[in-house]
């Protein structure tokens, strides 16, 4: 742990330096333009300082994003619609609902595929095809169709998350439910176990590690789905709505801090699923790594 901290810190530092350099380079043309109009000829240091302090920079400097993120996360009331916590919560709630739907749907599909040969041959191509359609094309249709039947609000957004998150779970669980070794299956056969006994006592426990691995992918996909779902819905709150508003008004710093908020939420979600996976593994007698 201690040995790996230094190289990681160095790489991180290098990235920040690269970011600053890029910020200066990308913001320089606009700054030169401004200076020319104001008939100013600043020195190099002053010029660089200015490129890193623009209100609507092409590429915000890391400290600008950090300050914006800090202010909008910790200094605002969490009921304010400018608060990142509030917006993250809006997105998180539809992410979690969509993730729960998606995981359940993925498991149901996997159970069907493993137990019904017809489903195995007929369903899989459709499932794969469903994931090749750009979600941006599908999202507005889901919203419109559901609005037409009177479903609005959280559910349509969550369903877009479901659309993205059921896939990894379905694929992972098909693999997991088929993962028992031949001898383990033969053993059940010698016991004259019923298909449901084989399912609950062998296939389900054997699939648990696969479930958690695919849930890690699914939860991140859910978040992407929730953010994308906010774009065409004209949502007034959520990380997606913040991104859209930032783009409308060229508030690049807001866009970047919304992105940071999104990745923090994603990292937390993946970590939580990972922790849950480890706890379950330990409860199931897993060998400590």
């Amino acid at each position, binding site marked *: 742990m201690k040995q790996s901290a230094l190289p990681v810190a160095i790489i991180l530092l290098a990235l920040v330096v690269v970011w600053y350099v890029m910020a200066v380079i990308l913001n320089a043309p606009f700054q030169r333009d401004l200076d020319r109009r104001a008939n100013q000829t600043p020195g190099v240091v002053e010029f660089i300082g200015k490129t890193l302090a623009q209100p609507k920079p092409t590429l915000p400097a890391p400290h600008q994003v950090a300050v914006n993120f800090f202010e909008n996360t910790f200094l605002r009331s969490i009921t304010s619609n400018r608060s990142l916590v509030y917006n993250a919560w809006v997105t998180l709630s539809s992410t979690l609902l969509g993730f729960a739907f998606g995981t359940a749907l993925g498991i149901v599909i996997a159970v069907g595929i493993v137990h019904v040969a017809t489903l195995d041959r007929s369903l899989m191509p459709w499932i794969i095809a469903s994931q090749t359609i750009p979600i941006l094309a599908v999202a507005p249709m889901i919203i419109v169709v559901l609005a037409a039947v009177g479903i609005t609000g959280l559910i349509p957004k969550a369903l877009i998350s479901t659309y993205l998150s059921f896939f990894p779970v379905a694929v992972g669980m098909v693999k997991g439910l088929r993962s028992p070794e031949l001898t383990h299956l033969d053993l059940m056969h010698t*016991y*004259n176990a019923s298909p449901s006994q084989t399912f609950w006592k062998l296939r389900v426990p054997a699939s648990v590690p696969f479930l958690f691995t695919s849930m890690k992918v699914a939860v991140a996909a859910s978040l992407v789905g929730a953010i994308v779902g906010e774009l065409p819905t004209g949502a007034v709150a959520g990380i997606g709505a913040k991104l859209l508003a930032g783009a409308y008004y060229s508030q690049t710093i807001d866009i970047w801090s919304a992105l940071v908020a999104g990745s923090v939420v994603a990292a937390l979600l993946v970590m939580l699923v990972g922790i849950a996976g480890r706890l379950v593994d330990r409860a199931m*007698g*897993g060998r400590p790594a």
Partner: protein
Amino acid sequence: MTGASPAVVSASKLGLTFQTNDGPVQALSNVDLTIGKGEFVSFIGPSGCGKTTLLRVIADLEKPTSGAISVNGMTPEQARQSRAYGYVFQAAALYPWRTIERNVALPLEIMGLSRAEQAARIKRTLDLVNLSGFEKKYPWQLSGGMQQRASIARALAFDADLLLMDEPFGALDEIVRDHLNEQLLELWERTNKTICFVTHSIPEAVYLSTRIVVMSPRPGRVSDVIESTLPKKRPLDIRETPEFLAIAARVRDGLRAGHSYD
């Protein structure tokens, strides 16, 4: 044959042909065999001789393609459905998410026994294989020999009169194997079960068996059946007696005769 005792396994003209991509493979051909109650029968032969296949046919894990076989007077399928046998695989095949006692409990849960009955049988069988005190351990916490003993306990908990064992000690080292052989004989004597035992070790076959079935490959068939003249009580050093060595020599001859070295 062993005369008056009723047949536990009876096969006549038994054959099994696998259809593979390279054409049909005759795994078993014309096997005639009767195993009486209380016998300890070993199947020995080079790989591909069909010894494991024969055991799997008895267990209804494979279906014969010709001939007839009965287990406890029933078809293998009926025997399996009435849970007539316990099967020990080459690998211990314990479920890694279950503790040792839950692993032994697995067949009992499937049979729908009461909790009390399960607990009693778990205790009795774990005692029988000297694994008391390891109930709460997970398989990975046990050595290979202990895992295999747990899997034998699991087969015994079933309480079937017939025990089918497919090279159960094949993956273990010599010292552990000797020890488990001794324990298995002791167990057989105490429980009076019928045991079918697949092995590729001549000393193991001779030491354990009342009868040794020598098999040879291409097609898999029985090439010799040797009755052991050793007494039922067998200390490990019986393996140095002339009698033991004579039987081992006969087995070796049988194996050589049946092997074509093509």
